[in-house]
């Protein structure tokens, strides 16, 4: 589809000929980094522009400048041909820009209506026109096409519903440009479909949407044009029609990747991890499986199916109600993650920032945390040994850091994940559980993590990989387990002859439907 064809309300000639949004030659640098170097962006009315790039490519900085959260060092922003000066988020709002960040700006204790109108109540002390607000909120939600109880507490809404509230909030301020930063990252497949319906509705109303995502499938489904960034520079913008998946990856990474999933089968040996009848409340019900040495077992299912909960039981992070966990035939009694770690099990958590890393601490301190027994004598640390070992991982995993004393919170997602990897690799555990190992990670780093899994499997480790991304599960696993509502509903051994549809059917529980 060509953006120029989209019908616009014909006001005056100058306005309609100019694009909805034009950012020219935007530059921004931080101490030691050129985050953006002369980036151009054009967005037309009724168009979805996908913004693609690895982490650290400069997408977020560009969006923050558009939203007034950061000020550019150079560059110009024009909306419908009018130059804009956007110094703060309020300016952006007035200019008709609505940004929906990955972390929502909603007050969980307020209702959907209250959140939509937050900040728009008008100054001073006045009586709130509750009924009018309610009416207006309903109209907005109807416009989006998602009816919702406007008086429901936001904290009680699903993520997808909260997203709709954010969109309604943007529409209330008459946003003509809506930016969505990784909106699908935490949604289920059905919710993503509904989100796309909403985006199409916005498009039809002449709103321009900038859509940021790592998921190429989604981009091919929803975007009209795609703009690729790399290392703070604009690499290419092209229509979806003239793009292929391989080309996109090549542009993002800057080199060709022959294969997205470089699976190398390892020699599969005897069972290492064996769990039987694991139970914990409704989350995990009678889960049994085993992982053999050299094997990568993919564990998939919808969000809330109990995958992470199962992993936490095996890691001793939650109390087991019933069931047994054996490692190399020896039953384990796990009261604390400490016990699991000592036995040779490690877990790379799904949420790096909340559970995997101490963001305020340095790379070295995070790396050392589970390994201090090795790096200390009688409780006194041997920092030299710690640094020596860390240096090895920085080289072998190609972690991009200024040094071991850099704070982990300032690293990109991929490099953070590599620090987590390094800290667990140093443990040399026998069973490694990866929970969403590639979420929020750019293509290049993903590839490196897959290669690392291969190496670990070849070394005889047992790997359990939890993932929602079916291509990844099918591409990397030797065997696939599917969970639905706390139970294992599928066990696929013949990975080469399965499909996303087959697995999805197991994940929604329809294979057991009628029983």
């Amino acid at each position, binding site marked *: 589809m060509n953006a120029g064809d989209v019908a616009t309300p014909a006001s005056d000639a100058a306005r309609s000929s100019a694009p909805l949004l034009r950012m020219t030659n935007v530059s921004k640098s931080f101490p030691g980094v050129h985050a953006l170097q002369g980036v151009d962006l054009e967005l037309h009315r009724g168009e979805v522009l996908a913004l693609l790039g690895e982490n650290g490519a400069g997408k977020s900085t560009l969006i923050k400048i558009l939203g007034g959260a950061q000020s550019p060092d150079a560059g110009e922003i024009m909306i419908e041909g009018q130059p804009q000066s956007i110094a703060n988020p309020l300016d952006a709002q007035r200019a008709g820009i609505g940004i929906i960040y990955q972390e929502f700006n909603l007050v969980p204790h307020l209702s959907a209506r209250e959140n939509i109108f937050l900040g728009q109540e008008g100054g001073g002390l006045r009586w709130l026109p509750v009924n009018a607000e309610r009416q207006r909120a309903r109209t907005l939600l109807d416009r989006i096409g998602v009816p919702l109880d406007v008086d429901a507490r936001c904290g009680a809404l699903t993520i997808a519903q909260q997203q709709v509230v954010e969109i309604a909030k943007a529409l209330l301020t008459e946003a003509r440009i809506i930016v969505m930063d990784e909106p699908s990252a935490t949604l289920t497949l059905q919710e993503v479909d509904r989100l796309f319906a909403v985006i199409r509705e916005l498009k039809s109303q002449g709103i321009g949407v900038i859509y940021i995502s790592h998921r190429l499938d989604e981009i091919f489904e929803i975007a009209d044009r795609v703009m690729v960034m790399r290392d703070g520079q604009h690499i290419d913008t092209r229509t979806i029609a003239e793009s292929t998946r391989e080309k996109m990856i090549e542009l993002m990474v800057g080199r060709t990747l022959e294969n997205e999933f470089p699976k190398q089968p390892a020699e599969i040996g005897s069972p290492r991890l064996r769990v039987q009848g694991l139970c914990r409340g409704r989350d995990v019900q009678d889960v049994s499986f085993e992982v053999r040495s050299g094997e990568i077992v993919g564990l998939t299912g919808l969000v809330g199916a109990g995958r992470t909960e199962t992993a936490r039981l095996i890691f001793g992070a939650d109390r087991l109600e019933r069931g047994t966990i054996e490692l190399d035939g020896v039953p384990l009694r796990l009261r604390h993650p400490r016990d699991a770690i000592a036995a040779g099990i490690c877990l790379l958590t799904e949420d790096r920032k909340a*559970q995997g890393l101490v963001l305020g601490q340095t790379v070295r301190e995070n790396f050392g*945390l589970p390994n201090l027994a090795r790096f200390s004598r009688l409780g*006194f640390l041997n920092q030299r040994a710690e640094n020596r070992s860390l240096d090895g991982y920085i080289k072998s995993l190609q972690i991009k850091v200024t040094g071991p004393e850099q704070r982990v919170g300032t690293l990109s997602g991929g490099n953070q994940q590599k620090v987590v990897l390094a800290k667990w690799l140093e443990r040399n555990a026998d069973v490694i559980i990866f929970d969403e190992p590639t979420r929020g990670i750019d293509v290049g780093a993903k590839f490196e993590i897959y290669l690392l899994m291969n190496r670990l499997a070849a070394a005889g480790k047992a790997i359990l990989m939890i993932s929602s991304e079916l291509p990844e599960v099918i591409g990397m696993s030797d065997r696939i387990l599917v969970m639905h509502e706390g139970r294992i509903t599928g066990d696929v051994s013949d990975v080469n002859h399965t499909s996303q549809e087959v697995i999805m059917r197991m994940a929604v529980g329809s294979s057991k439907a009628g029983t």
Partner: protein
Amino acid sequence: MKKLLQSPFVSNYGMIFVLLLLCAYFSLATIDQQNPVTPQAARKIVAFIAAQPTVKNVLVVVPRGVEDRRFAEAVRQGIEQGPHKVVGVVVGDPAMTRVEFVRLGAAGTTVDFVVTQYAAAKWDLLLPAGRQKLQQEYPSLGAIDVVKPNSYTWPTFLTPQHLLTVANQTALTGIVAIGMTMVIITAGIDLSVGSLIALSGVVVATLVGRMAGESDPTLVSLILCGMVAVSVCALLGAGSGLLATWFEVPAFIVTLGVMQIARGLAHKVAGGSKPVRVDSEMFHELSAGNAILGIPNPVIVMLLLYLAAHVLMSRTTLGRYLYAVGGNPEAARLSGVPVKVVVVFAYAMCGALAGLGGVLDASLFRTARASGAMGYELQIIAAVVVGGTSLAGGQGKVLGTLIGALILGVISDGMRLTDVAYDTQLIVFGSVIVVAVLVDKLKSRDWRMLRG
């Protein structure tokens, strides 16, 4: 400039510049004439007399005063070690001095030198005219020379003795603030330390009093008494930690409760709010003594504890765990850190150090009150915050706390020296705390963001 601001030393210990600035300011503000009666001054005079070729008779004259008496005694002892003779020592007023001269004159004793100090040298009797008159009345006294230590201009604040006094006054806050720093680094808070100081003081005073009986208690029994007091406080601290971790009760509430409980226990032990006196000299010596280089014992104890705490926090597993637990307890737990044990340790340590503070305090004042150290917890928390430790946990340096405690100590002492009114003092203190927190906020943010 920016590089300097972001260097690790400045961001961790930048407050040291504030401390130095404060010291410089109070030094300038307290420049005054100094009239030393120190042991050094006494030694100089003794050396002067000793250098006389012929045997001299010396009379020592000082006004009444503890330090003057010490000075006179030092001079007498020093001179008597040589060939020269001390014919008399007067600690008193001009009239008494006159009486002494009359006695010496009547006995026909010669007085070659009068050793005195700044104030007494101005007595009429010792001025040239007064001396001439004396000589006329009693020719046997001979020609009297007056010798006194040289006066000079120097900041009162910057004399070694005064600096030691400031350090000594900071010791209690400083010692307890070590434990508070650990607790705050684990993202907790301990409001009970003031009460624990009082409880510990009362416990140790009562025990020493009971044991003293007729004779002075032995060193071993004193140490035992101190250890009991410290242990009681450590247990109460550990209790706070247990409640805060195992039952996930907010530390603020738990320690607020323990604060009341400890205060109540202190009153119970003391049998009311009347002071518990300790008469043991040896116990008093614990705080009042200055065994090493003339530095008061509490200052030595404080410095040793800071050294140990710094090593603990920066060089040991436990220290690393404390930071990790404060930075992100869930990530720490999932990395195998025994989070609960670590937190309980921090609170127990904080309690124990409050206990030690109480013992030192009781020793210094020879008395303990159940109502003592009221509101001290806030001053201690202030020292930690001024020292740069974030109340959000996970960040801070124990040596920063030492600087923080010294800053508060210097400000309080300096304002007293320069006669700042009490109300103004309070306002200054409050402002210092607020500014410290603001600086902490600025540090943690990108400087560019602030301007943008």
